[in-house]
């Protein structure tokens, strides 16, 4: 098959290990011994081999090593994985290939291996430029560690770097946040992800601040978390400061210099098919959403599921499958669900969705499905329309949860 006739595919590889868990983190990750990590990488290599067989009709446009902390692995293991991917999948020459890194784990040697493996984008988890804050949220590195890592990466030739920062940390003031933003801007990364802290159940932060967050949601003044007004000002400040320096917000929490938006991420919002590899990773192929087992011991025994079987299931079989011993969940999206996702994912991007794209994909006029919702949200000032595009306004973005939930259709 010629590459031109192949469908687009994104790959996500999950590395569920970290030095220690940050207090706010609810991602699937854990500290682990070196031998266990090696064992895991071996199984990941196995999974790549098995699952790639069902993907010969796809051309990979992006690869993302996420975690956990992928940079915890020795550089050579990332290279092994990349080599295996190249052997088994058809990967575009100009594919975007990202590795998430924790500044506390990055070394010159690792970066050299990444370069050799063809990694062309790094995502550095900084979170804050204040060492006091970094300590308070359980990070293992200092701001200086970050600067060293960033510098190294530039010297070794990484020209596309993202920096992650988190606003609305406990006891953070607007000035604190401004400090972090300014220090990050001084390093001039190509991309900045600026999330607002979510206090997730099951994290140490939830124990500590869960009640506080509940207060804030109900409009009561919180004790430790920044109040609603400050939280919102932080969001606005992010946009202002970053905007002044040429970063454009292209998604609710993501900013980039021109041409540097993260293609992998955009793929999620545009319903590009993706295959997740590794523990607990999610996939979206042929309108089926499924995910791998989240149990490490099961995964290490090779319970990562048979992709060919999954893709050959009929929707009616979904239940029996998910009840099997594979510990996998599987969901066939019907047309209604596809339309919902097209809207609530697409609208996360500031460019929003194209009316024509909806019509092309579903063969239906957007208005025939969402006419009332669009009218209502527009009346409320949450939605804008321009040249066949529909997008959330500033206000719409700040209450995006409410606005997006409107796109769920009745049964």
């Amino acid at each position: 098959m010629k590459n031109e006739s192949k469908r687009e595919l994104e790959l996500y590889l999950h590395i569920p290990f970290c030095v220690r868990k940050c207090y706010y983190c609810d991602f699937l990750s854990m500290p682990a011994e070196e031998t266990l990590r090696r064992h895991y990488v071996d199984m990941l290599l196995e999974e790549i081999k098995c699952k790639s067989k069902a993907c010969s009709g796809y051309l990979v446009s992006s690869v993302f090593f996420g975690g956990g902390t992928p940079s915890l692995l020795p550089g050579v293991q990332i290279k092994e994985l990349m080599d295996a991917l190249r052997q088994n999948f058809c990967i575009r020459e100009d594919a975007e290939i990202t590795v998430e890194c924790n500044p506390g784990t990055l070394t010159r040697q690792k970066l050299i291996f990444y370069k050799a493996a063809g990694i062309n984008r790094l995502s550095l988890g900084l979170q804050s430029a204040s060492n006091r804050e970094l300590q308070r949220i359980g990070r293992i590195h200092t701001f200086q560690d970050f600067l060293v890592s960033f510098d190294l990466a530039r010297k070794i030739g990484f020209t596309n770097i993202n920096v992650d920062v988190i606003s609305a940390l406990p006891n953070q003031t607007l000035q604190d946040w401004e400090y972090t933003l300014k220090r990050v801007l001084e390093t001039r990364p190509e991309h900045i992800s600026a999330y607002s802290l979510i206090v997730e159940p099951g994290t140490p932060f939830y124990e500590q601040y869960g009640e506080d967050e509940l207060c804030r949601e109900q409009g009561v003044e919180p004790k430790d978390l920044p109040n609603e007004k400050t939280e919102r000002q932080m969001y606005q400040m992010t946009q202002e400061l970053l905007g002044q320096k040429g970063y454009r917000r292209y998604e609710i929490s993501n900013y980039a210099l021109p041409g540097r938006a993260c293609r992998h991420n955009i793929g999620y919002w545009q319903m590009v098919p993706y295959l997740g590899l590794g523990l607990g990773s999610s996939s979206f192929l042929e309108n089926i959403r499924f995910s791998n087992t989240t149990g490490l011991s099961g995964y290490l025994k090779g319970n990562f599921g048979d992709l060919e079987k999954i893709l050959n299931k009929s929707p009616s079989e979904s239940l029996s499958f998910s009840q099997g011993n594979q510990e996998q969940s599987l969901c066939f999206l019907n047309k209604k669900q596809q339309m919902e996702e097209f809207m609530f994912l697409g609208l996360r991007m500031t460019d929003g969705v194209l009316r024509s794209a909806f019509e092309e994909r579903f063969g239906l006029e957007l208005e025939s499905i969402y006419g009332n919702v669009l009218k209502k949200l527009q009346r409320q000032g949450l939605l804008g329309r321009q040249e066949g595009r529909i997008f959330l306004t500033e206000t719409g973005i700040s209450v995006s949860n409410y606005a997006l939930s409107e796109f769920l259709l009745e049964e």
Partner: protein
Amino acid sequence: MAVIDQSKIRNFCIIAHIDHGKSTLADRMIEKTGLLTSREMQAQVLDNMELERERGITIKAQAVRIVYKAKDGEEYIFNLIDTPGHVDFNYEVSRSLAACDGAVLVVDAAQGIEAQTLANVYLALDHDLDVLPVINKIDLPSAQPERVIEEIEDVIGLEAQDAPQISAKTGLNIEDVLEQIVEKIPSPGGSPDHPLQALIFDSLYDSYKGVIVFCRIKEGTVRVGTAILMMATKATADVVEVGYFGAGQFIPCEELSAGMVGYITASLKNVRDTQVGDTITDVANPCKEPLPGYKKVNSMVYCGMYPADGAKYPDLRDALEKLQLNDAALQFEPETSIALGFGFRCGFLGLLHLEIIQERLEREYNLDLVTTAPGVIYKVHKTNGEVVELTNPSNLPDPAEIEYMEEPLVSAEIMVTSEFIGAIMDLCQERRGTYISMEYMEETRALLKYDLPLNEIIYDFFDALKSRSRGYASFDYEMKGYARSELVKLDILINKEEVDALSFIVHSGTAYERGRKMCEKLKEEIPRHLFEIPIQAAVGSKVIARETVKAMRKDVLAKCYGGDISRKRKLLEKQKEGKKRMRQIGNVEIPQKAFMSVLKLDDK
């Protein structure tokens, strides 16, 4: 079956204050007499409904026949009639008592006499019943049987020196109770040959048998084929089956004659034909007079009930009709609300009755309900001389047409230990009570008498009473009639729009306080919207309280979770689901439970 010797029958009930162990004693007696083995016993056999067992209260009257072989070697037939134990069902209690010849009075050895004990004893004495006191819970470390015996003698004036001292829980001395029932409770009178005269003390609807009437035969005999007449409702029918009560089952027999307690089925379709307290007689050979004491039961408390899902309106109607088959005191008629759509205005004996019906509708009929604030029946005297009985605040005539209004009063008896007298008097004062009297029962306990407006006690008076007396006060009341009162209609405006389902009638003196609390409560219940929502309480055109629900400014869940879109979907679905349980009033979405929030305004 052999003809039963009237002298070997004992018809009695057990009366007690709530939680003094009435149902446990009944269970133990059933077990002792071998009607059920203890393995077959489910705790509290007589409380049939799931709800009754759960709440530990008796809602419907129940009866059971047990056979006791006494120490004199003779076998006695005991008909035990279990009476409802709540003031809402006072009339039912009085009819159950009228079906008995004696009563076993259970008093808790630790707590002594309580308000309900007194009310029940007086009721029993009114019916000329012989009252047999029993001291229960003597196994408790805090038991003081001597003190309680003294109290029974001093306060009630009953001989109590040889009262059985028992523990219904452990089964201790239950035989003493059984023996004393034989000795002290008289056998029934009446002649099997007189014209039939039977008292209905309860009835229930069974989908196979139709209406099953519980009755005590005072005179005469009834058997299959007898044409019977209900003297008050004038309903007639032919008897299909007669029988007596096994444990949890009906056992048919040939006939019921004077002195016996049993049931009659007569292909009747509706319990409204067989009102509690009515007299059954033989069409062919009628008795001269009905038995005394019948009255039609009237609803005292009203509220609106609406299906949460408007499409379930017919289901709600069916469910209410079915419940009414079994509950003559339940009334309902259709009504519409701007806020809540189609529903019913329902009438109940009291708040407990309301709660029970509401729970049964939700549990047994799987209906999700929105209930409006309960109210009483007000009498509106119009300037044109007309008197309107008002059950729905929305129907209040224009104030210009109103001469004056009246509200129902109750006379309440509250028994309380002396340290809490002040707190309870304060409470009664706040609830617009009129002090009548106070008597000391003994050194540390007093009986307070107050006249209270019914609408002040239907919401949360009992809870307030309990919390202000650390659970020690007990309470009983009876209707006293109507009194003129300064009443106003309190309206609630949400985002400037009046919400009819939230209006209620209050005394003008408490309107401000109520309005303020209501606004505060609604502020908690109504989620934030994209705009500010004023909540106002108003009397006429005058706003008396106001709160504001702040506008929602930020609600973002930005994380992507490594492509885990299902998680994102779930969060959005949860948000959307929350909205489904809302009622749209203008631009504002109000959660269903906000309509019930008026019920819980006492925050003390």
